[in-house]
């Protein structure tokens, strides 16, 4: 990994850490709100990167896994308020397992296809889960629901404030560490090897399929955890969280930052969230510039932001 990438990632983390005192000092709660959004989306993007980047599989339904995490929190808070089930210590692993299992199942079916067909079938499963969320009439159906109670964390909760922000940043750091370790492991080597040349991997007798399903599960689990944080952050859960446009946005973050690199998803999420805030302060029509900017990055810098900063590599 180039030094520029490391430096920028470090600078971003410093900014993430500094955001809390700065926001308190300047009495700017919205600043913290924006950075929390950034940390949560970056966590989901890190998860998606395992499949999209490292394994090179064009998955476009990951918003559904974020949605599973969010609905886990929302449904538990609505059905079992004041019990153990509203504890973050229970919700986070539960959401991770649920989203991971669903991701593994979807992966297992989707991996029967390749290329564009794979892209479309993951989208199709995402849509099915979207409509499943719409069918949850008890939980607001299309209209969604307000989170009845934030996740408890000891005496505190994740509703707002510095604690919930700190958790989001810690979770992002952990997600990056997991991504780092996974990709340094033999597991990661198989995934990358299969992305580069599937036949060779199979020729040496490795069941690529199983590794890829594993990547799907890990990726889904990280997105599920991001979903738990997202539900607490916005205190509102609706099918819109699972919309296919959200899946595309997540993928765009990964690609913009640099797919298949450790810090790419972080860069992409930061660019997406921060540029929106900065540009929209200048003009409500900022997308007319942001859109062509994305195209320009594709044309001029195929490796995304991480690629711009230095040679593309994984370690």
């Amino acid at each position, binding site marked *: 990994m180039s030094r520029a990438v490391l430096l920028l990632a470090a600078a971003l983390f410093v900014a993430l850490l500094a955001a809390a005192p700065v926001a308190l000092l300047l009495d700017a709660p919205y600043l913290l709100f924006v950075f929390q959004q950034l940390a949560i989306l970056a966590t989901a993007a890190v998860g998606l990167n395992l499949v*999209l980047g490292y394994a*090179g599989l*064009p998955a*476009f339904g990951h918003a559904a896994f974020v949605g599973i995490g969010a609905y886990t929190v929302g449904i538990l808070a609505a059905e079992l308020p004041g019990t153990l089930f509203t504890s973050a210590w229970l919700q986070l692993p539960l959401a991770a397992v649920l989203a991971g299992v669903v991701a593994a199942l979807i992966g297992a*079916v989707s991996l*029967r*296809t*390749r*290329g*564009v*067909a*794979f*892209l*479309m*079938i993951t*989208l*199709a*499963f995402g*849509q*099915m889960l979207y*409509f*499943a969320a*719409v*069918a*949850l*009439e008890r939980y607001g159906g299309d209209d969604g629901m307000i989170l009845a109670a934030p996740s408890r964390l000891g005496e505190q909760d994740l509703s707002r404030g510095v604690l919930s922000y700190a958790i989001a940043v810690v979770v992002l750091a952990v997600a990056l560490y997991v991504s780092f370790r996974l990709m340094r492991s033999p597991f990661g080597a198989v995934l990358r090897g299969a992305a580069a040349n*599937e036949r060779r991997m199979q020729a040496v007798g490795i069941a690529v399929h199983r590794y890829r399903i594993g990547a799907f599960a890990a990726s889904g689990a990280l997105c599920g955890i991001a979903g738990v944080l997202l539900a607490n952050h916005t205190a509102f859960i609706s099918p819109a969280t699972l919309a*296919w*446009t959200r899946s*595309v946005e997540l*993928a*765009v973050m990964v*690609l*913009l930052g640099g*797919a298949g690199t450790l810090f790419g998803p972080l860069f992409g999420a930061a660019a997406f969230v921060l540029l929106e805030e900065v540009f929209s302060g200048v003009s409500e*029509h*900022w*997308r*007319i510039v*942001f*859109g*062509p*900017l*994305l*195209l*320009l*990055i*594709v*044309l001029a810098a*195929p490796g995304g932001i991480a690629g711009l900063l230095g040679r593309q590599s994984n370690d």
Partner: protein
Amino acid sequence: MTLFLEQALNGLQLGVLLFLLSAGLTLVFGVMGIVNLAHGSLYMLGAYFAVTFTAWTGSFVLGAMGALLATVLVGVVLERVAIRGLYNRPHLEQVLGTFGLILFFNEGTRLVFGPAGLSLAPPAWLSGQVTLLPGIVYPSYRLAVLVAGIASAAGLYWLVARTRAGMLLRAAAANRNMAEALGVNSRLLFLAVFALGAALSGLAGILAAPLLTVRVGMGEEVLLLAFVVVVIGGIGSIRGALVAALLIGVIDTLGRAYLPGALRFAFAGPVADAVGPALSSMLIYIAMAVVLVVRPRGLFPTSARTDVAV
């Protein structure tokens, strides 16, 4: 029975619009290997142009012709300026780039045409209804959409199957490198294919404009359906797109009309009430997943090239 026939007609009418949308998409996809998310933007522009030009000229037909021309023009410029750079790039990068184009077109449309939705009345001579069979009364405009769509499908079939241009196109879709080696000017061919796709997509937008509110974001609503059609039909296959579009249109319409009732018949009330509408919305995606698992290259697979790694 008359209700069923009327719903089936509604399904076919939706299917015809989907065909126009996906025929362009499947050509661009199959011949040029481009995943173009901005295809829906051309549909939106067609609709906006139709409203504007109809207001200027006072005639729906003149307005529609002007809109078609304008959409093709935008398509040509788009291919020259942006799409050309995306040939031979991984699909994921094309997704990122054309996603940027969606943002551009949506915001540009908002700037040029204003944020409010626009509506377009069908021409007076098509605002009545026709009695097709005793008991089956159908709005004339919807019938006209059906006829226009079928005529376009026939024209497209003739173009692709019977003309020299179509032959080149089929050759390029089957094997681009071989076609180029044999002297096909692929730059020109790609431009023509993209313009044709823009025309078809714009036509869909023009025809749909009087049926809905013309607004920013309408392109993304149908884009997904168009992709479903393309994939089920088989990438690059016009015939596949036609069959899949009609299939999806009919499945979607009939599913929404009859599935909740059928479920209510089979299960207890509240369960069916909750599951019925959701399941009918899911139906086409379930259909797509099944087709992809059984026949990963769609119902009418064309070339072997499209399942190369993304």
